[in-house]
């Protein structure tokens, strides 16, 4: 997946987008290779969607450049569009058409000839398991089915790059797993480059061959999920104790990092499971203890200095958040 000599599918150079004074995307330099499943991970407002919108030519950069499949997004947007498929964060299928009609219309907008079009519609419907519902109005589809239809539509015209903006936002856990399955499968079967944004750590960890962690318009960390987790330096032990005193850890080389938040102490520890006994002996009486294997969450914490709070982002909410997003993008 990560062959170093693959062609560059996406490059950005000093890519910047400002809305008034706010730099939504701030001097971004990024290379994505052909065949990668690349994840942009970060909280809402980090600039992920703006980055996508710049790459898919729906927004013009304030400064800097970007290319997709070697084509400049500013100089030749029409050509870029032919090379990409997009699944937007907010739903974008036509409710008053059937699933099949949505796909056919898409194919026509991408100039697919009739024969190929009919064959491909059946193919992608098969892939997302919507064949038996293809003639029903999209209105009657569940949230998960709509998402699948959008995925199918994004694939219709054999794009070189498929952009997925928060592909599982607002879906229930079971449906999310379904969608993950499809994404993993199509990345393999259709052999395309996939760029996805997400604020689910789990999603990025599971699907992506490489991840860029984004915060306030910048990429703050970049690498394979494994490498990023390794960089954190170990597992995290969270203990709760009143009046924690750092000095008790003196001489314990296995503790790499200490961070105190209220009565919670976050310790980065090598091989926490094996070393817990020694650690607790040194710390003394605690109210509770929790061992967490290194996760992307910790990576985020390490690079941004902030906790990654999914619950605040309305991860399960969906609608209200989506509406807000739509409004903020309109300016």
């Amino acid at each position, binding site marked *: 997946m990560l062959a170093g000599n693959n062609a560059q599918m996406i490059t950005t150079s000093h890519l910047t987008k400002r809305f008034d004074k706010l730099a939504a995307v701030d001097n971004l330099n990024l290379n994505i290779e052909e065949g990668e499943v690349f994840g942009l991970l970060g909280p809402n407002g980090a600039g992920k969607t703006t980055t996508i919108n710049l790459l898919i030519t*729906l*927004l013009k950069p304030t400064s800097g450049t970007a290319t997709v499949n070697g084509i400049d997004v500013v100089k030749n947007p*029409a050509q870029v569009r032919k090379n990409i498929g997009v699944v937007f964060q907010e*739903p*974008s299928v036509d409710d008053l058409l059937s699933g099949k009609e949505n796909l056919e*219309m898409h194919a*026509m907008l991408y100039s697919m000839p009739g024969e190929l079009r009919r064959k491909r519609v059946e193919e992608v419907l098969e892939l997302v398991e919507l064949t038996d519902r293809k003639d029903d109005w999209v209105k009657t589809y569940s949230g998960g089915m709509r998402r699948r239809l959008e995925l199918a*539509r994004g694939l219709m015209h054999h794009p070189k790059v498929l952009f997925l903006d928060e592909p599982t936002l607002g879906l229930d856990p079971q449906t999310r797993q379904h969608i993950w399955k499809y994404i993993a499968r199509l990345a393999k079967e259709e052999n395309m480059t996939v760029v996805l944004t997400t604020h689910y750590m789990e999603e990025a960890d599971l699907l992506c061959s490489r991840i860029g962690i984004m915060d306030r318009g910048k990429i703050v960390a970049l690498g394979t999920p494994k490498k990023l987790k390794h960089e954190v330096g170990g597992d995290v032990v969270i203990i709760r104790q009143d009046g924690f005193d750092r000095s008790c850890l003196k001489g314990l080389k296995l503790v790499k990092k200490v961070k105190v938040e209220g009565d919670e102490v976050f310790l980065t520890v090598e091989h926490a499971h094996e070393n817990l006994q020694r650690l607790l002996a040194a710390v003394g009486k605690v109210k509770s203890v929790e061992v967490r294997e290194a996760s992307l969450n910790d990576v985020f914490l390490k690079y941004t200095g902030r906790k990654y709070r999914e619950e605040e982002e309305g991860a399960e909410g969906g609608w209200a958040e989506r509406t807000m997003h739509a409004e903020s993008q309109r300016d």
Partner: protein
Amino acid sequence: MAFEPGKIYAVWLREVKRFTNSKARIVSSLGQPILFLVALGGGLSAMLPGFNYLAFILPGIMAMTVMFTSIFSGVSIIWDREFGFLKEMLAAPTSRETIVLGRILGGATTAVFQGTVMFILGMLFTGVPIPPLMGIIGIFVLMTIFSCYLVAAGIAIASVVQEVETFQLLMNFLVMPLFFLSSALFPINQMPSWLQDISGLNPVSYAVDGMRGMLIGTSTFTIAYDFGVSLAVLLVAFLAASYFFNKTSI
């Protein structure tokens, strides 16, 4: 601007399918004009002996039907924006003019279809004799031009306004005045002079006047003049629609 007939067809087809998929929309958009024709036409005809008012307002009611559907179709870009579908179109390798053109033709198809239904109903129930073939063709052409410029105007407005909340407001404050302040319901030359002035500035008056001329043989202006004004308005509206839609963002 590249001419992309296949893609224009795709956008056209969507408009038509949305229309035929929704039986409710077809029925509801005919209800009001029929009510106008029956209640207003029937009622006033009884008060004006010797003057077939029903025949007089038939072209006005046809224009009303076309107006409602056309402007609704153009302005519904606001809904496409709200429900996300506009992004699908804007992200496709399709020029903005193609989208505008496809929508205009699609909206006009559905509107002219409804205008035709009103025309047939009128022929059946108002006692207006069926006009000669040239007249019928003329009526269709003028109705199509009329519809196209209204869809285009709707697109231009929707590209600028963008808020769903203003949708109803637009429909009320645009369609109603355009309709009532035109020659649709009253003969221009019998209006008070201030209304004549407004009505003369209202493009709808010319479309109605031309249709009336070809349908029942009475018109204030010459048919050629009515066509000329309508074509000029179409050109301006199309340019405005293209210009503003080009500037629209997601």
